[in-house]
């Protein structure tokens, strides 16, 4: 699919459906992406666009029912995670793939010490002894920049500040030296200075440890600062994807273009209004055969209602799922899809 190294993670046509009272919700609709060794892939998209559900689907972390994975492949090295059973997946979680979640206030268990929660994956996956695991836990806390690490192992999560707790979460995710770190809005719940510190920490850890990272966020500014590639999600689908500079320079999808315009500019005009994207986010699953962005799109035409666009390559590793050609301002003529 892409030139360069063999991807550590290769997701193809992943489909996740929730069965609800009011019908099926196609929360993840044929999502494909890959992640190369040591790379940081940014994932953006508005609330409800399926970012979290996509990542949770990879490792079977969604409760089933209501969630059901309808199809696709998730290659981690040379195993397809979707063919592994629960036992197989468990050996991958926390061992090969580490997770950091949004809210550090609630992601840690309040009644266990940080030391206990940090040594758990070490003892489960690596079979370390208690003392050995504690030594490693001290190293990990030092690695994520928690001062006085040895003493703090006996502390409970409520004795840490929000930023420190997120550092602990990162230490837990990295405990078994995973190949992939998935960070689901890890800084959204933190205030801006702490957010910057966590970003610095992740950049630093990435250089030291060399794992590949998937970083989910709402914040395009964060993406521009740390990501190598970006994937924009909309309505459970990948709207656009490409190397970060290329995508920011030539946004091709009307949604991405609108998203970039909503970003306030520091050097922009004083009286510039904060832009919003008009209309409502889509109700997923209602019209899987049409483009999910159609109702809010300024360029929509009849084909958008008939046919949900597939991703087409537009050069420089950049692809977009849209019937409208941003270069000509006209509907696309040829149907060159992304070969996958």
């Amino acid at each position, binding site marked *: 699919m892409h030139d360069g190294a063999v991807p550590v993670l290769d997701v193809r046509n992943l489909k996740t459906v929730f069965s609800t009272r009011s019908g099926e919700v196609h929360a993840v609709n044929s999502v494909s992406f890959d992640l190369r060794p040591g790379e940081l892939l940014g994932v953006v998209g508005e609330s409800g666009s399926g970012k979290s559900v996509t990542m949770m689907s990879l490792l079977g972390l969604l409760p089933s029912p209501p969630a059901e994975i309808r199809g696709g492949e998730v290659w981690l090295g040379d195993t397809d995670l979707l063919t592994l059973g629960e036992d197989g997946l468990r050996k991958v979680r926390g061992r090969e793939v580490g997770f950091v979640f949004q809210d550090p206030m609630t992601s840690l268990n309040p009644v266990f010490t940080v030391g206990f929660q940090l040594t*758990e994956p070490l003892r489960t996956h690596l079979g370390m002894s208690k003392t050995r695991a504690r030594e490693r836990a001290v190293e990990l806390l030092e690695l994520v920049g928690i001062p006085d690490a040895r003493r703090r192992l006996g502390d409970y999560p409520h004795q840490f500040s929000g930023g420190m707790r997120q550092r602990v979460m990162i230490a837990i995710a990295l405990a078994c030296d995973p190949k992939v770190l998935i960070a689901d809005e890890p800084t959204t719940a933190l205030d801006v200075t702490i957010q910057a510190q966590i970003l610095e920490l992740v950049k630093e850890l990435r250089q030291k440890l060399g794992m590949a990272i998937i970083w989910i966020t709402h914040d395009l500014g964060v993406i521009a600062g740390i990501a190598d590639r970006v994937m924009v999600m909309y309505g459970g689908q990948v709207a656009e994807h490409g190397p970060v500079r290329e995508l920011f320079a030539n946004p091709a999808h009307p949604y991405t273009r609108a998203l970039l315009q909503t970003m306030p500019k520091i050097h922009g005009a004083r009286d510039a209004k904060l832009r919003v994207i008009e209309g409502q986010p889509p109700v997923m699953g209602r019209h899987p055969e049409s483009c999910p962005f159609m109702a809010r799109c300024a360029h929509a035409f009849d084909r958008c209602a008939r046919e949900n666009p597939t991703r087409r390559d537009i050069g420089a590793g950049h692809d977009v799922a849209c019937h409208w050609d941003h270069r000509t301002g006209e509907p696309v003529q040829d149907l060159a899809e992304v070969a996958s």
Partner: protein
Amino acid sequence: MFNYTMRRLLLAIPTLLFIALVIFLLLELSPGDPMADMPLTIPPEIREQMRLALGLGEPWYTRFFKWLYLFSVVEPSHVLASITGLENLAIDGQRIISFQTRSPVGDIIAQRLPQTLWVVGLSYLFGILVSLPIGIYSAYRQYSWFDQAGTFVSMVGFSLPTFFTGPLLILIFSIWLGWFPIIYDTTLVVDSWYDFALQMRQMAMPVFVLTLYNAAQITRFMRASMLDNLTQDCVRTARAKGLTERVVVLVHVLRNSMIPVITVIALGIPQIFTGAIITEQIFRVNGLGQLLITAIYATDIPMVLTLSVVFAILIVVFNLIADLLYAVFDPRIRYD
């Protein structure tokens, strides 16, 4: 925490004094005469002397303070003496005398306590042992047939009062089937396997009725608490760490869910002594609950007052214990 406990215990003293006074005054104001059971042939002047002999001639505050002294000093000294076997610990002289039986209330309570503890205490224990696993599994498999059945049974157990289930069981198992005796024989001394079997048989129905009731309550609580915690973010974290489902549920979820459940269990312990009044009455188990009922019927004021204050003490103490357990099990809570 030690300071907190001490402060709470000291605060409990005025509370209990107030409770004792209120109960005393209520009994004072209530209608009824301890002499009512005496034959009508007793001449009025003798009747009056008997009243004076019971101490009823003195003003209420004198009687209250005398009772208070006997209750807090003399009776405990006798209890202590019989527990330790050191006879000289007991303070000689006047004790709180039950109008009805003319014996010291402390001794009667000590006699009745074992029956109550056996029947009601055992059912509380069984109730806990049964309800915790059911509550945990019901919540983990919410809406499964197991959960539906469990919820149905606990709703039935919770909403049917023991004065309904008790007679129903007596009707089915004692009268129709004849499996269990109707009346609990307190004089039974267990010194052979045969007597042991008899004891089991007579305990079966009251224990079952109370177990059902207790289990129903605790199951509902356990289930709700587990459901609250199963969807917590930290449980998702535990799963994402690759822990087994067993560890996720029985360590991470359960440890959080037990905090409120343990306090509820602790708060329910005084009910072992008080709450079984009706069940004891139905099955003729002559424990503390039945003692209280008969004392009320007989206007046995010293007995009613003493028992009620003992119950009040138990409630206050177990409230404190529940609060302390909360702090023990939840590291976020610190009392200083």
